[in-house]
Each structure stands twice: as structure tokens, then as C-alpha cells.
């Protein structure tokens, strides 16, 4: 059976350290003001703040990037086929084809896509990260690629490899014996916004406290 790459993020293990967000930005040479991967706080109204009053506080973190949907809304709306799905299920953007209409950004329920409104800015002013990631021009959409430059070489995506809390897992969803498949089944993995019908290949394992699941 063909491979179907997926990711599992264990919210009970995530400590909200933002390492994956920073590592993603470095690895993929993401320009200033843009982010492919971010770690959101489920709790109060500010980053890293809980909800409730002491001692009844609740908080956990939700790392969010492209959900690599099995039924991607972004691919369907792209008028020129610049956003497409690889046979292994990874959704990518062709920066040489994109016309910059931003229709895919409106179609994405997760806010996972970012746009190069001007010329990409880098500080310091040279490309960083993986040499296999191409530089993008002004006026195109970009987003998480599941680090194809690493995955195609048999490595894990940068966010998975760098997670200090070992909250992230990567593997083949088509293989019922893979670590990700087992985790989803054993720990009741769930998808974000399942009602939208996009069928993400990123699964979340619930934070430990009962009655405090998803949004």
C-alpha cells in the first residue's frame, strides 16, 4: 500500500515551548512576519495564560500548522493547480505557478497559509536552513510542506525531530502497525474541526485532564 504521511501531536506532552515553531521557521527559511507553524494557547485570552481562577486553572497548547488534509479545500479552489496534493497525500504549493489570488487562504479553515505581501524579508539578509528549500518570490502563498526535503530523504519533519518534549510523531497512516496509527487508536486521537470535512492527516492526542478536550 502506498504511503500516507501523517502526524500525531500529543497535547498531554506539549509544553508550549515554541521550539517547533522556531525550528520550522529556520529549516524552511520562512520570511519575516510569516509563520508556517505556531503554538497556540488553549486557555486565557493571551499567549501562555490559563482560563479560570486559581486554583481552578486550565491551559494547554495546540501547535498548529497545515493539517495536510486528505480532502483539502485549498487544492479544490486553486484556479491554476498551483496548490496540489502529492500521491503520498502531502499538500504543496508550486511557487512558480501561484498567481497570488489568495483564494486558498480563504478556503483554509485552519489559517495555515501565509502570503508574501511584499518581497520576502530575512534577518540576517541571507537564506537560512535547509539548502533544498527554494527561495520564494513576492506575491505567492506558502505553508507547511511536512518538510518534504527531509521526508523524501527518510528523515522526520524538523518540528518532529526538534520537539524537546517528544510530543510529535510522524509516520505512515496507511500502516496500521506504525507508531502514529497506534497512537491515534490507543489514545483517542482527534482531528481539528472535523465538521468541516477536510479530514486532516494531523491528529491530536487529548490533553490529560478529562472534560477539557478540543475547543
Amino acid at each position, binding site marked *: 500500500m502506498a504511503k500516507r504521511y501523517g502526524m500525531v501531536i500529543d497535547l498531554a506532552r506539549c509544553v508550549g515551548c515554541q521550539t517547533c515553531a522556531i525550528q520550522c521557521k529556520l529549516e524552511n527559511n520562512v520570511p519575516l512576519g510569516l509563520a508556517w507553524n505556531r503554538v497556540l494557547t488553549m486557555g486565557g485570552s493571551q499567549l501562555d495564560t490559563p482560563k479560570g481562577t486559581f486554583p481552578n486553572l486550565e491551559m494547554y497548547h495546540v501547535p*498548529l500548522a497545515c493539517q495536510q488534509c486528505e480532502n483539502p479545500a485549498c487544492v479544490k479552489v486553486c484556479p*491554476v493547480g498551483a496548490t496540489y496534493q502529492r500521491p503520498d497525500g502531502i499538500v504543496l504549493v508550486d511557487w512558480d505557478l501561484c498567481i497570488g489570488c489568495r483564494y486558498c487562504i480563504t478556503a483554509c479553515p485552519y489559517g495555515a497559509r501565509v502570503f508574501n*505581501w511584499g518581497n520576502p524579508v530575512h534577518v540576517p539578509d541571507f537564506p537560512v536552513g535547509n539548502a533544498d528549500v527554494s527561495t520564494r518570490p513576492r506575491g505567492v502563498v506558502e505553508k507547511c510542506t511536512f518538510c518534504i526535503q527531509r521526508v523524501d530523504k527518510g528523515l522526520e519533519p524538523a518540528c518532529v525531530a526538534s520537539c524537546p518534549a517528544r510530543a510529535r510523531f510522524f509516520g505512515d497512516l496507511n500502516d496500521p502497525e506504525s507508531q502514529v496509527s497506534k497512537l491515534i487508536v490507543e489514545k483517542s486521537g482527534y482531528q481539528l*474541526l472535523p465538521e468541516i470535512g477536510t479530514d486532516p492527516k494531523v491528529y491530536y492526542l487529548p490533553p490529560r485532564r478529562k472534560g477539557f478536550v478540543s475547543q
Partner: protein
Amino acid sequence: MKESGRTSGRMSQIINVTNAWLAVLIAIMGVGAIAYFAFQFTTGLIVTGMRDIVVWGLYIITFIFFIGLSAGGLIISSSSYVFGAERWKPISRVATLLAFVCVAIAAGTIVADLGRPDRVLNLFLYPQFDSPFIWDLIIITSYLVISLVDLWFMCRADFARKRSIFAFGTKDISDQAVARDKKIVKAISFVALPTAIMLHSVTAWIFGLQMARPWWNTAILAPVFLASAMVSGLALVILTTLIGRQRGLLNVDLSVLQDIGKLLAVVVLVDFFLKSTELLTLFWPNAEAELARLSLVVSGPFSSLLLIEWTIGGIVPFVILAYPRTRRNALGLAVASILLIVGVFAYRVELVLPGFVVPLVSLPPGQAVGQYIPGVSSYAVTGTYSPTWVEYAVTGAMIALGAFIVTVGAKIVPFGSSKDADKE
């Protein structure tokens, strides 16, 4: 002698006023061209007020607004053939010209909105037919072709009679040829009317099919688009015809416009019925998500737009059109038309922007907005948008271009005296 002197004086007056008007339009287009080519084209969409979260702004609002404004055209000219509304024939030419211009402007704003306008041909080279954008491209192209061909066949005999270059070499002005033209126009009408309906529906589906935007994601959006398009479209036809009459370019009886005014009043009712159905469906269940969406337009930053849409853009013009005494004079018709166009524009803003402001996943710190400004967070939980001068200038230039084509078109297209209309 005295008579002709007065006439030529009046003629030169008309030409002077027209020239001044054209000069103003050219100036506006010039500013827009500078804004686009010297700023947006060379530095990117960073010069607009759009950022991630609110990724569509004034350009897309203008796009759907102009698609809507085109509705009067083919609907009036086609109805006069398909449903035999003979009395509307005198304005079918101006209506068709308006339809063509409005759709052309709409297509222009789409190009202005692209981050890579240099790759616009990709739309034709690599079309992806699942995308409602491509459906819209197909229907817009068809609509432009149909309205232009329709207009030409309406006017061909007049062009030939005047030996105008726009006759494209056809010289036949025999009764047979005129009858053949009429048949062709009638045949086109049967295609044009469904095309016009599809144009508004497909434009609505660009928004209405998006599950990620609950504010847009409603099956009633296409009917609402059709109704609101007819409101603004018919209002534009009435307004333009009134101006044409005033300038002595059109010889149309006011009673024809009153007829259209009456139809307009009915369409306004239908439009507001459909919109109320949608608002009630959001309000009644008292469900958190729906109420949150509704509160954006009812009590939030967009509430003034809703107020404009329903009062001075809805109830007031409706009363003017429904009340015979105000409907029967040119001023009443003009005021009602302007107010309705304003109301429909408010609706367009209110449809596009609230769809973006609160993303489905809006947890702190939010998402990156796409620009780093020292001292300001690059992240935002909810979106904000206000257009920049570049967007105003480019949009203004688009509108000026439309007005320019209509003004010049009024000199080329034989809108006709009543005599032309009779012969048609």
C-alpha cells in the same frame, strides 16, 4: 437662423461639459495608473491594507459590486425579447453597454487583486476546473462576448446606415437584413438571460461554497446575489438613462423608467426577504457560533453598514419607488437609484469582510499577519482591514475607466432617437 444658432450653442455646451468630464476621468485614471504601476506592481500587495487574516479587501468588494451592477443590462435587453417587454427596447442598447462595461471593470479589479499579475495567463494555460474562480472566468468571458455581440447586432443597421467603421464592412440595410439582425438579437437573448443568471450565481459560489467561512457558507447566497445584483443593476440603468435623457443623448419616455422603477421595487422586496431569511436562520437557534457571527454585523464594527443597507439603502428607496408620486418624477427615480446602489455596496462590504475577521481557529497569539513592524506583534487573533490610498486610487481608476467607456460609447453607439428605436 436663430434656432440653429441656439442649437449649435447648446451642442458646443454639451461637448464642453463632456470634455471637462472626460478630462476629470482621465486624471483619475492617471492617478490610479501611477498608484498601480509605480507602487503596487513594483513593491507588491504590501502597499494595500490587506494582510493575512483579512486577505481580500476593496478590490474583491469592487469586483462583486461591479458584477452585480452589470445585472440590469442583459436582463433588461433580454427580457424585452424573451418576455416581449417591447416598451423596454429603447433602453436595451444602453443597458447592454453598461453590462459589458461593468463586467469588464470587474475583470479588471480581479487582475488588480492578484499578487502575481504577471502570471495572469496561467488562468488560461493551467485552468483547474474544480475552482469556482475558473467557473467565474468562463462565465465572465462568455458574458463579455455575448453582450458585445448582442450590442453590435442591435446597432449594426444604424452603423451601416451611417457608413460607420463599426459596421465592419457590412452595408446591407434592407428590411430583410434588419429583420435578420432582429432575429439574431432575439436568439442571443435566449442565451444571454441564463448566462446573466449564472454570472451572479457563480460569483456567489466563489464565497458560498467555502466551508471555512461560515458567514459565506449558505445556499441562499446565490439567490441573494442575483436579487441584490438586479437591485443595483436596474438602479444603474435607470440612473444612466436619466443622465442620458438630461444630456439629450437618449430619447426615452419617463414612463418606461417608471415601469423599471416598479419592477425595481419588487426586486428590492425579494432581496430583503432573502436576506432576512438568512439573518433569522442565524439568530433564532440562539447558538453561540451563529450569534457570534451575527454580532459582527448587528452590533460590531460592521453594524453601521447593516444600518445603511436596511434604511437609506433599502426602506427609503423602496418607499420612494412604491409611492406613485415620487416614482413618477425623474428626481425621485434618481434618488432612489443612488440610494439602492449605496445600499448594495454596503451589503458587498458586509459580506466580504466579516467572513475574514474572526477565523475559525482564533486562539492566542493568533496567526502571523505577513508583515513585521518593529514594536508591533506580527501575530493577531482577529483581523483588521482598512484600504490604503493605493487601493482607493486603483479602484477609483477602474470606476473612472468604466465611466469613460460609457461616455465615449454614448458617442459611438447609436442609442438612438425614438426613430432608431422604432426601426429596431
